[in-house]
């Protein structure tokens, strides 16, 4: 039986949303098993490339994002009490009209679902940070006061240097909220979920050796 009050109080991160879509068991192992999370080479490489990309972004214009002017902020720590969610966004661009989340990815493929909903979760966090209790909290410097709603975001693929614009739709927001509920119920009930059916994802998974039933 799900312990709902306990489930509601569970704080989650945006990475959990991403991981849950990739494979729900990763989130289960993170929260329900007392494990020390191993670090894989892929994760190390990801961290390094993110740091490198930040340096490059600072020198570049915003033409890739089809913007002329905007203020960039890197590694923004975001938290929403309402959603019980927190995360660190790679980059946000603030213009006079918009606040745009940008995620850097070390992948060569196009936008995948886990990246897409990760971006949507960041968009929701960014909105909550910008307007806490109806008052704007300007997390960017200067005279720019972005509007309340985040309408789009970008996923920047580092190896291919391609940028994909993703519209943040109402359905996406609902879907993120549903995932948060599902994760909380899973963690509160400590029930092990089905592993992903895409077995190639297990290859680089840091928890592969704990999934004894499938590997």
């Amino acid at each position, binding site marked *: 039986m799900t312990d709902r009050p306990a489930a509601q109080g569970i704080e989650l991160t945006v990475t959990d949303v991403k991981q849950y879509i990739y494979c729900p068991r990763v989130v289960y192992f993170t929260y329900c098993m007392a494990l020390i999370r191993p670090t894989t080479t892929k994760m190390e490489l990801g961290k390094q490339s993110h740091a490198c990309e930040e340096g490059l972004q600072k020198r570049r214009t915003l033409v890739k994002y089809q913007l002329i002017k905007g203020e960039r902020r890197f590694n923004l720590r975001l938290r929403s009490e309402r959603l019980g969610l927190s995360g660190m966004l790679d980059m946000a661009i603030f213009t006079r009209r918009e606040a745009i989340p940008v995620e850097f990815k070390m992948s060569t493929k196009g936008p995948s679902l886990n990246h*897409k909903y990760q971006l949507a979760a960041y968009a929701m966090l960014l909105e909550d940070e910008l307007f806490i209790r109806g008052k704007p909290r300007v997390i960017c410097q200067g005279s720019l006061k972005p509007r309340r709603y985040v309408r789009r975001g970008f996923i920047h693929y580092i190896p291919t240097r391609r940028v994909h*614009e993703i*519209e943040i739709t109402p*359905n996406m927001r609902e879907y993120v909220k549903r995932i948060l509920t599902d994760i909380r119920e899973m963690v509160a009930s400590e029930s092990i979920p089905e592993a992903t059916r895409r077995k190639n994802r297990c290859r680089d998974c840091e928890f592969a050796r704990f999934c004894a039933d499938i590997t």
Partner: protein
Amino acid sequence: MYFPTEEERKDLTRGLLPKSREMIVAEELRGWSWNTPPLEPIYDIKLALYEVANYYCPTARDLYMKRVMGINANPNPAMLFGRALHDLLAKLITEAKRAIYVEGVSRASEALEQMRRPDYSSLDNVSKHLTQEELEELKNRVAAVWRHQLNAIITQVDSALAKQPRIGVDSLVSLAIPVSVEQNLDGSFLGLSSHLSTDAYRFYETAILDIKFGEPKDFHRLTTAGYALAMESLYEYPINIGCVVYARFENGRLLVDKDYHLIDDELRQWFIEARDEKMRMVSEEIDPGMPDECYGDCPYIGHCSR
């Protein structure tokens, strides 16, 4: 009903069509990825599309009763009304096309005018299950739907004739009546029936249309999503737009509302989750339990009890 009004056309060209072109749908959620998860069916059974998409019973116990318990309940009057009106629309569109092909371009308008008298043959299959009063009501509805749709076809044909002086008969049909009704699809790649048929499919913005003669429900969009996935699995081109056409009757008048929508990642995932959940229920014979509240017209109301 199947043709967009001027406002709808404007809404489509300025709103939904540009959005659908820009919308990125995850490759794994396109119908042509049917051979990989999550689209690849887990169980070796086939479900009808309406069995996946219907959530009139919130726990889908009606499907359990039918597929696991083997109970075939009699359809309720609303279902019979819907069936008759669906058949009627398909018949009207087909007959209108036939009349144009047979009579040719020069006599097309005249041939359509001769179809003014409604065809009540779609009542034959359902009349024995209805009371006299219900049958009268259904006859009135048939007449209203027939008149409405035939007038729309005549307008479309006249417009095409007025615009294209050298139009051929095949071109006239495809320009004036750009829908294909009851298009059969093989949904087996997705674990669906091999004999699906869409209510209508409109060519010019590649939209799947589904007609409902009842109250709007959010899960109605699952039907268009399912057909879009099935079409993508067969023909390998993207289908991003769906439209649920709601026809209702008020004081003898036919009122039509249309719910145009994008067949986006979320809707696709919802459909796949519904399919998997229901396949598991049928395959593993899992009783989903009674819902908190049953819907009034449930045909299993006498069979399904606490």
